[in-house]
């Protein structure tokens, strides 16, 4: 037994169960576990508990959100908008410091950082979807009636030629698109809608020249389901809160075929 294996401790068992060991250390810990069946059984039980917890509570993510919670998430925005307006009237726009403070207070937060379970693209795509898909009046910046302009504009801003796939055969028509902020480069979001008003967004970001292609990956953020993949120069994420996993996968396949004729 190597020295490294001898120094396997309690924390290593937990880090192993949580999948938090670096590759090399994991091999050492696993070699040690192979020689220590009692601890191996314990670590396996910890790992199984993680899986049971996730399986047991996952359905909560799909439950409809009670209205009182949505109101709680929205309430202060209305109040603060009113307060901001009141502030402007009372103090006047001449006081730049106050105006600057108000602008700062209204600034949107950056999307949360990536969690280890899902890459950044899935999380950001899901958040962008959750923000714009419920919009009734302004779901997109440029409508499908100006599709040529939309595609030319987004291609210019992304620095590479993007296309809006046609999904009529899947029952989805293009609503339009918008440009989203992202560090370091911008992101395009296309929105599609079916006749019953179910919405899907396609998030497209430039990935640089040397990206490998990846398979489809599935993620769920809140009630938004996401299939994402990287294909040559672009990363794609197809999001919907209205379609189930199978329907979304079918659509992701259609998008992929459209973009890779």
């Amino acid at each position, binding site marked *: 037994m190597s020295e490294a294996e001898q120094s396997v401790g*309690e*924390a290593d068992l*937990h*880090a192993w*169960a*949580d999948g*938090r060991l670096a590759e090399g250390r994991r091999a050492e810990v696993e070699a040690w576990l192979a020689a220590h069946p009692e601890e191996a059984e*314990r670590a396996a*039980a*910890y790992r199984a*508990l*993680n899986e*049971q*917890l*996730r*399986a*047991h*509570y*996952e359905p*909560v*993510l*799909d*439950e409809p*959100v*009670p209205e*009182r*919670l*949505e109101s*709680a*998430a*929205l*309430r*202060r*925005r209305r109040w*603060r908008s009113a307060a901001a307006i009141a502030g402007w009237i009372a103090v006047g726009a001449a006081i730049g410091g106050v105006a600057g403070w108000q602008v700062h*207070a209204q*600034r*949107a*937060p*950056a*999307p*949360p*950082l990536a*969690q*280890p*379970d899902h890459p950044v693209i899935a999380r950001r795509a*899901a*958040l*962008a979807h*959750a*923000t714009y898909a419920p919009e009734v009046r302004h779901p997109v910046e440029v409508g499908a009636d100006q599709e040529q302009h939309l595609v030319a504009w987004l291609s210019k801003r992304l620095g590479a030629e993007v296309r809006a796939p046609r999904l009529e055969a899947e029952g989805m028509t293009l609503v339009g698109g918008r440009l989203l902020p992202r560090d370091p480069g911008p992101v395009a979001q296309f929105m599609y809608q079916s006749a019953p008003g179910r919405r899907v967004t396609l998030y497209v970001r430039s990935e640089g020249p040397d990206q490998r292609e990846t398979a489809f990956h599935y993620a769920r*953020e*809140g*009630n*938004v389901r996401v299939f994402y993949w990287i294909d040559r120069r672009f990363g794609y994420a197809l999001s919907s809160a209205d379609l189930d996993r199978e329907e979304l996968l079918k659509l992701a396949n259609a998008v992929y075929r459209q973009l890779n004729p």
Partner: protein
Amino acid sequence: MSDAGSLIALIPRLRRYARALVGERAAADDLVQDTLERAWSKLHLYRHGTDLRAWLFTVMHNVHVNQVRASRPTAALEDDMPELAQRAVQGDALLLRDLERAIAALPAAQREVLLLVALEDLSYDETARVLGIPIGTVMSRLARAREKVRALMQGKGGSKLQVVK
């Protein structure tokens, strides 16, 4: 994206954690609602660009601690007072076989750590920051929580654990 849009998108995640933490649905949603209201009043403390979900867990932790303290003046969220911090699920250990009961039987401080790590997939470091405790405390609470759950779910007769859906 607006603050409100970000908060709405995170509600299902907050509900899942609260459900596991508190158990009962209405009480868990009360905790989420209090957390969202508190988050708005504390939004100036949130550093833009950092993980909003982790920050909301911190807010929820503080709200939860205050609620537990308010409901039981002598209770504390410390491991060394398990009989006070435990949720009101008592009974024969042999009966505490299903997952929810095993989780409920943990002292709140251990339950929080276990759920943030095992259910919400936060790193040990993130968990330490969310709860405002040293990482060594995270590890020791995690170890105790897992051992207790394992013991409860295995039962004395070594019966297989049951997951109640």
